[in-house]
């Protein structure tokens, strides 16, 4: 199984899928930073509140989508040939861990997130829930394969000694 995941064609497909998801996710947020900032506020993790000024959540709302775009764009390029593919996947993986933690936090706090702010920012967005976490875990698995199990140079099976 692990050997199968270490094949270059598998990595190209995973890279394309993850890259498209991240570029797609960045689109609406880049177009409407104010709407995305409001959704970030709803999580009540980065403020604003009595202690945390609006700058923190605003900075996150403004920079996150572009990080998604850069990482996702590199992954799409990585479909053709490897352009920082592992590093871009690692960034996506780290973001997914943050997303899962944030949604889990909101659910634990009983915050009713009608729109998780994952893709769409209007009322059509997905609500935050277990299905969302499951989807994120799937994406996280893909990112983990890309980042942690780089493909072996094309050669026959059995060469278990190739360096990581």
């Amino acid at each position: 199984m692990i050997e199968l995941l270490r094949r270059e064609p598998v990595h190209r497909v995973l890279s394309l899928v993850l890259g498209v998801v991240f570029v797609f996710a960045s689109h609406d947020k880049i177009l409407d930073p104010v709407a995305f900032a409001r959704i970030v506020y709803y999580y009540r993790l980065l403020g604003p509140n009595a202690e945390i000024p609006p700058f923190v959540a605003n900075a996150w709302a403004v920079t996150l989508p572009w990080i998604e775009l850069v990482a996702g764009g590199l992954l799409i390029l990585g479909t053709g040939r490897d352009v920082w593919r592992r590093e871009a996947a690692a960034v996506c993986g780290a973001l997914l861990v943050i997303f899962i933690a944030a949604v889990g936090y909101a659910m634990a706090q009983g915050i009713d997130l009608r729109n998780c702010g994952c893709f769409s920012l209007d009322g059509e967005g997905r609500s935050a829930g277990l299905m969302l976490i499951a989807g994120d875990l799937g994406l996280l698995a893909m990112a983990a394969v890309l980042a942690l199990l780089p493909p072996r140079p094309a050669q026959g099976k059995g060469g278990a000694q190739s360096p990581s």
Partner: protein
Amino acid sequence: MKPLRIALIVLGGAAAGLAGNAVHPTGLELGRNAFLRQGDEVIPVAEAKVRHERGALFLDARGRMFWEMARIPGSVNLPDEDFDRAFAALEPQLRARFDLVVYCSGYGCEASHKVAERLRDKGIHAAIVEEGFPAWQDAGYPTEQGAPIGFWRRDELGASPAGAPSGNATSSAPAPPA
């Protein structure tokens, strides 16, 4: 895997984000609360208390259940999520006032801003309590609980009888300080 590349992806993306926002026609003002709309008047809770004592009418933009659990004394429920119905019942009362104050559950709550905006669209101005109901409670100001019977009846009958004796003291004149 090279950590430098990871740092470049993150920092490059962040820099692009800040630059993109700066040139964005409807970009985010980084130091400002994004819930704020043009025309919002936001007042601190101490100012809200002063206006309450002067007899301002308070509007609770939270859902009905929260309003019943605890609210600023004398406040009427005008939830964002059920705005049209609640507004229809309250409109004459709201139009007769010039001193409206709307609140919800604090910093993470957008409902008061949305209600203020909807009222503004109808030509009615309402100030927004900046830190909302939690700050009111934290300051030790009085609150009241429960569903006033008159409110329930009027609401459940649907059509509000014209000239109904405004149900009870709670929903019309500001209640005497509890």
